[in-house]
């Protein structure tokens, strides 16, 4: 009995010692890593871009840093990104460089990123590039590149169905009906997890409510009023939403698409089974590889004039106020602002515009129909304008969910608009 008890005490002591050793080791590691950081070396950044896509950018940054610092990139999937970055920053931690898109204004509001207005490299970017990274005239971040979306189209299907490339929204609906009548699928949507229907509606609103609409005297300024709570969407955008709803009424967007993932929908377009697919330059390489004949056109206005397509600064880069390696982060920001790194961003996203002076992007031949719209700067989206006083991603997610309701027949366009107002009322930073 005594021996058993002694063995028991010995084992327990061993276990506690092992645990203590583990903790001790951790502390030493921490101290060592802290020492390493203070002597320089690693600058951390996190992002939702695939590591392969970021490889050229990381190499370019490290080239600019010349061995003084090394950029360490961590991939987090887009669906988890807001959660992971948000909680890290809220607890006073997070990567040295904060990379964020529509939520960057939220990071500024929360005081998570440093003001960089006085930095020389800031002057190298056009003002439009700071739309998500400025507040009250102060600059907190620099843009990576400009993103834009549009509608991919399959040239062979259009030819086979004897359909001309549509120039107005009505022509687009007619084209879809003609393709449908020929037994082909006009549009591909993966509404189970994709935001393409939300992108389609947003594109339509940009063309037919915010611009080119005499009933909306405020133009895009309306969104400032909506963001602050002075205006509601209800009573304003309803008619435009009803017009876009034609796509659902005419079964161009169908309930069946609610059970299809975005990747499956894209695969159908790549397989040559679908005539139109909402997307953008980030899908160019994988579509090109299939060998189908395709092109990219902008979203469409009612008249075919003054066309806008969805887009804006893809993501902004700022310095974490709690950066473990602030000096390295400042050097990395200078590197990110260089022509070489900005070119690397554009190369990873063929045809995307840059906000950096001295960086030109060449558009592939497939972009001929969207080139005029992009080159004239007609790129915008409402959630960027909303983000001054509400978390834009939450509004995007809500819109995706409510559009599912429209497609399933559970909601009317008016109910969709009211639901968006209700969400905005619940999440404004300042009410």
């Amino acid at each position: 009995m005594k021996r058993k008890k002694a063995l028991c005490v010995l084992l327990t002591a061993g276990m506690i010692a092992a645990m203590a050793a583990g903790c001790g080791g951790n502390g030493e590691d921490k101290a060592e890593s802290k020492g390493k950081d203070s002597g320089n070396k690693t600058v951390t950044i996190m992002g939702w871009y695939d590591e392969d896509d970021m490889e050229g950018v990381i190499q370019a940054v490290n080239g600019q840093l010349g061995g003084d610092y090394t950029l360490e990139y961590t991939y987090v999937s887009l669906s988890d990104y807001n959660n992971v970055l948000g909680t890290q920053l809220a607890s006073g931690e997070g990567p040295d460089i904060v990379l964020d898109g529509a939520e960057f204004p939220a990071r500024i509001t929360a005081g998570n990123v440093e003001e960089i207005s006085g930095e020389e490299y800031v002057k190298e970017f056009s003002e439009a590039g700071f739309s998500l990274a400025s507040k009250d005239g102060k600059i907190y971040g620099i843009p990576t590149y400009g993103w834009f979306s549009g509608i991919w189209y399959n040239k062979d299907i259009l030819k086979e169905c004897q359909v001309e490339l549509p120039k107005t929204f009505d022509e687009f609906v007619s084209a879809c009906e003609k393709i449908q009548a020929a037994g082909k699928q006009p549009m591909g949507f993966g509404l189970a997890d994709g935001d393409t229907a939300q992108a389609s509606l947003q594109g339509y609103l940009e063309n037919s409510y915010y611009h080119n609409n005499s009933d909306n005297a405020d133009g895009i300024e309306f969104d400032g009023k909506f963001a602050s709570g002075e205006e509601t969407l209800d009573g304003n955008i309803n008619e435009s939403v009803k017009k876009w709803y034609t796509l659902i009424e005419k079964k161009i967007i169908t309930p069946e698409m609610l059970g299809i993932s975005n990747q499956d929908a894209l695969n159908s377009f790549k397989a040559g089974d679908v005539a139109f697919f909402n997307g953008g330059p980030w899908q160019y390489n994988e579509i090109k590889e299939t060998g189908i004949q395709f092109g990219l056109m902008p979203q469409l206005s009612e008249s075919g004039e003054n066309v806008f397509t969805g887009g804006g600064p893809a993501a902004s880069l700022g310095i974490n106020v709690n950066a473990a390696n602030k000096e390295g982060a400042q050097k990395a920001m200078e590197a990110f602002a260089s022509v070489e790194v900005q070119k690397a961003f554009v190369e990873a996203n063929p045809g995307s515009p840059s906000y950096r002076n001295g960086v030109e992007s060449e558009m592939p031949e497939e972009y001929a129909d969207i080139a005029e719209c992009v080159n004239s700067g007609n790129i915008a989206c409402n959630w960027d304008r909303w983000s001054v006083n509400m978390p834009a991603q939450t509004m995007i997610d809500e819109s995706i969910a409510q559009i599912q309701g429209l497609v399933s027949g559970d909601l009317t366009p008016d109910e969709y608009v009211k639901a968006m107002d209700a969400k905005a009322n619940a999440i404004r930073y300042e009410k």
Partner: protein
Amino acid sequence: MRRAYKVKNGAPYVIMVLPALVIFVTFFILPLIYTAKYSFYNWTNFSREITFNGLENYKAIFQDSILEKGITNTLIFAFVTVTVQSLISLPVSVFLNSKLKGRNVYRAIFFAPAVLSTLVVGYLWKYLMSSSDYGFINNLLMGMGLEKVNFLGDAKIALFAIITISVWQWFGWSMVIYLGSLQSISGELYEAASVDGANGFQQFWHITIPGLAPAIKINFVTSTISGLKVFDLVLSTTNGGPAHKTETILTLMFSKFSEGNYGYASAFGIVFLIVSMIVAAVMLGIFKKWEDRLG
């Protein structure tokens, strides 16, 4: 002297419990206390200030129409899953307790899905149930001349499609618990009942069911709690859609957390705890009465 003796004798056991206790307190009790605390605070992603706001988060939750949907879906999921799971696993376990050829192979096959990660199972079934041209089940249905079914995209059936996946994954686990309990019921009881002229159903009702009572209780309580906690399966199949129709309490809590509204999400967590405690208490009460009746 006596007290000193007791401490001396109990000391090794206290030391042995200590590591588990530390882990339990660190990863369960402390987070629970903090969750309860922050449910009374305005703590968001968008401000560095954390301010006390009393019951505001709770008021906001009960004004949020989607909470009702979340609670209803959670209760439906837990109730239907537990019931269907037991209705399948109980007869299967009785069947596989008989002298059937290859019964160990069947047991292994039925239990295998329980070993898989729920997320993996969810993504797999999402692919199988897809209404696209790549969906295996719909391809099968169409091959048989039937119509396509929008399993996860039709709001009327999406929740039940998720329940089906959950039952497929976990009925083997319930089966194993019933099997363990069945093997502990003495064969002499059945022999005696046979001698007394009891038929198969009477033997099942008066010997098997009372013998399985503890296993039924364990299965129902643990499966109900798992059902109330459903999150990963919904996330990987419908993500609460279409149009929030398959949201559960935990997916709503997660989305509030993702939105950066930590105080509000904490209040959701506390509401979930209270709902779970009420359901567990009701179930335990029902089972206690049933066991008392069985004697």
